[in-house]
């Protein structure tokens, strides 16, 4: 007996998609496997670590505890949509400059959360960034260089006024 499926329509990184999904299919699996966007990673599958963070209508969510059907009609942003025309987004570039990544596994989720943080507050203090990224675990860096990267990226984004809205 074939499983019951639903049709969902959503936009991912600006591209429209229509797909058939089982209601139980997790959004993170849909993105990774059905849409071929493996940049969003799975860390815990119970909503604690934030590794699977993507933006849904500009707000960060945990895609491991979101059903794909809950994203019907939504606009999703993943790490694959950050770089534009072969150029790294300032956040990506600053993560590299400041060595805000080591294994890179938490990085996509961290980048998406950082986008939201800077959209809400384009000029945060290091303490504000530290508190805001507490939502996302990193096991490698101890967070310090991530915070430095976000602060540097924020300065660059303010300077070039490259629309911070996600």
């Amino acid at each position: 007996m074939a499983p019951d499926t639903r049709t969902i329509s959503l936009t991912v990184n600006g591209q429209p998609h229509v797909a058939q999904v089982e209601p139980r299919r997790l959004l993170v699996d849909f993105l990774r496997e059905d849409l071929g966007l493996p940049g969003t990673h799975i860390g815990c599958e119970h909503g604690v670590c934030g590794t699977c963070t993507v933006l849904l209508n500009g707000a960060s969510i945990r895609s491991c505890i979101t059903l794909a059907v809950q994203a019907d009609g939504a606009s999703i942003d993943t790490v694959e949509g950050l770089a534009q025309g072969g150029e790294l987004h300032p956040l990506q570039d600053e993560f590299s400059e400041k060595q805000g990544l080591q294994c890179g596994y938490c990085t996509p989720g961290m980048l998406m959360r950082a986008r939201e943080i800077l959209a809400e507050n384009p000029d945060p203090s290091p303490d504000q960034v530290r508190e805001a990224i507490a939502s996302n675990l990193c096991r490698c860096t101890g967070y310090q260089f991530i915070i430095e990267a976000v602060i540097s990226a924020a300065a660059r984004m303010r300077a070039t006024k490259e629309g911070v809205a996600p």
Partner: protein
Amino acid sequence: MTTANQATPGAPPVRDHSASRRWVGQSIRRVEDPKFLLGRGGYIADRITPGTLHAAVLRSPFAHARIGRIETAAALAVPGVHAVITGREAAELCDPMPDFGPDPAKHTWRCLAAEKVRYVGEGVAVVVADSRYLAEDALELIEVEYEPLPPVTDPERALAAGSPLVHEALESNCAYERSFDFGEVERDFAEADVVIKDRLRWHRSGGQPLETVGAIAEYDQGTGSFTIDTNTLSFTSYLFMAAGTLKVPVNKLDIRPVPAGGSFGSKLFANKPAVIAGMCARKTGRRVAYLEDRSDNIANCDHHGSDRVYDVELAMMRDGTMRSLKIDVVDDYGAYIQFGVGHHGNALAQVVGPYTIGSVRYRVRAALTNKNQQGAYRGFGSEVNNWMLEQMVDKAARELGLDPVAIRRMNFIRDFPHFIPTGNVYDSGDYERVLDHALELARYDHWRAEQQRLREQEGRHVGIGVITAQERSVFSATEFWFWFDEPGAPVTSTPESVSLKVDATGGITAVLYSCAFWGNSPETMVAQLVAEEFDCSPYDVSIVYHGSRDGLPATGPGGSRTTVMLAGAVEGASAKIKEKARRAAAHLLEIGPDDLEWADGGFRVRGDPERKKTLGEIAIMLHLFKHSFPEDMESGLDASKVFDHPYTTMPSADRKDLGVFYPFVGHACHVPVVEVDIETGAVTFLNYAAVHDCGTLVNPRSLAGHIVGGTAQGIGTALYEEFVYDEDGQLLSSSFMDYLIPTAMEVPELTIGHVETPSPYTPHGIKGGGEGGRMMAPAAINAAVNDALAPLGVRLTELPMTPERILAALRAAGHAG
């Protein structure tokens, strides 16, 4: 210590480029980064191809039970399920797992439990299905008859008579026991003025990287070969053991490493997922992925950290001179003991810390219990020794009325190389310089004054920890077997290999074997080292990770060995390439090879620099113009170096001297300032300074990142993280809701300093430093908390220092919580 070992160190002379380094020492951006930033990391879960099947493992809910009947028919009937393999069937399809433990036949470890489960979460069956979703659906339909047995969860009770036995064949829960005496322990204790005693307890935590272990396997029926992609690879020379598990010759097993989302030791030789995936691939004839989920990993990763009970005596003179140590340690290894007591070898490498302690007694008992087994966790057992010793030093200071900084300073080793009582050597160091720099960075005097002011004026409990401790690097193989007087396999190899290939355009490719990317930066290290050798850009060096089967011998990351060993391999391969390139250039320039010098990416005639050939010019000739060279000069320009451990000596027959087995020893000083809320048991950081000396640094920023990250994990070990088992062996911290990993709010901003005392024995004077942060932080934080609570008569001797433990200690001392 035998004189013979000290007189012939066997260490090679080292090339020192310090005057003219261009790349080593630069904090360049990592060459690895772009793919990870773009979301194209290529982790194991990213390599699922259409048609790949998925495995899921059924796990025991009991800590200790016999396995009776297993009904699998209902699971097999689920559409999309391709196979169900029980532990008993797996025992026919596969031999036991590779096991370096003391007596593997008596504590047999299999990829799935066959007759008995020995810890909650041990796998008893595996399902293979079209998707992980379906596989998990099918798991729920498998019925297993368990006959529960009484579990044993306390290591000391496990060693007592009458305890339930984890392995009946062993007839005991003591997998290993031995007492070593190094130096004149009884004499030193007899001459001491005072003996400081304590009992200390370090509970197990673990690496818990955000990515679990996973493997994708294919079995080729035609060739009888396995190809397994997995995020673990190490000890390629020992992979014959994994091949044996899968019942194929080692030259029919190819393990190909993929980038890993962190390891911290937990992906070291983690072959169980590969074996399970391989077994399922062979059974189904299909490509099979087994990707642990978080529940699989927390309960069953086979890489829990050290879990120790210490009874320690430190013999002191009244003036603060440290004389001798008696250490009695029980280590709770869980249900299996895959790495033997190697974790204690790591302790013995630096057992006296940075101090001129003259003798040591070390008694170790490995207890088996109904828990997941220990594996590797950053520090591999040496960080526990650091903590234990620094606790004792602080206790001694308190009892003798001495300042904790002064007592350390007065006992520092100052002459190098220095052989410690166990026989290992500390190659170089300047502990005073590190201490002074750390105190300065920490604004120590300021914080001492603040501590007093806050206590007197506001009744706040602020504490400062000052610890000085070692970070050994680059282990020798002897530490696998010097535990036994008559070891079955007294192995002596821990090589690392690199192949360098210069193509016809002069571009360089470096091939790494067994050198997993775990978040360490092997590509950046190698690129910088190659760039240093050949005056190219590190970003122009191409790095390839080679699989195990037709690769060169290699050991992989662990024991902070990677950078040193890669440096030796790169240096060796570069030397061979340059030797051939020199001869080729000499031929092309029609001059003697000795009249040439390497400069700026090529060979030039000494005294006539216009006559030169770049590496590219040499390479194209070697690749394409054979007839331009003498007969004995082969085409191409590539070379490999198998770099063996540069400084290892054998243990003495009586084991009173273990030889040199971990010679490149760095050092660090951590100075955290904490505040303890005595009403809640919460510990917060007011300041944290750390100075590390890991010899020459290849990429200082990268090392700093490891120090911060390691310190963060040390904070977890000190305050938050614990695999908590209850009396029934149930794992209470079975998810990230209860296994508490520090967020950005638990980790303070660190002020980091570097000191570099190069090793005399390694290329560029590099020492390993990747583990250092975690090797220091637990000791430092415990010291700080104890400093805060000392006025209340409270001292914590158990990690992690949870609010519960802190409040219980306060209540016991008469302070209401």
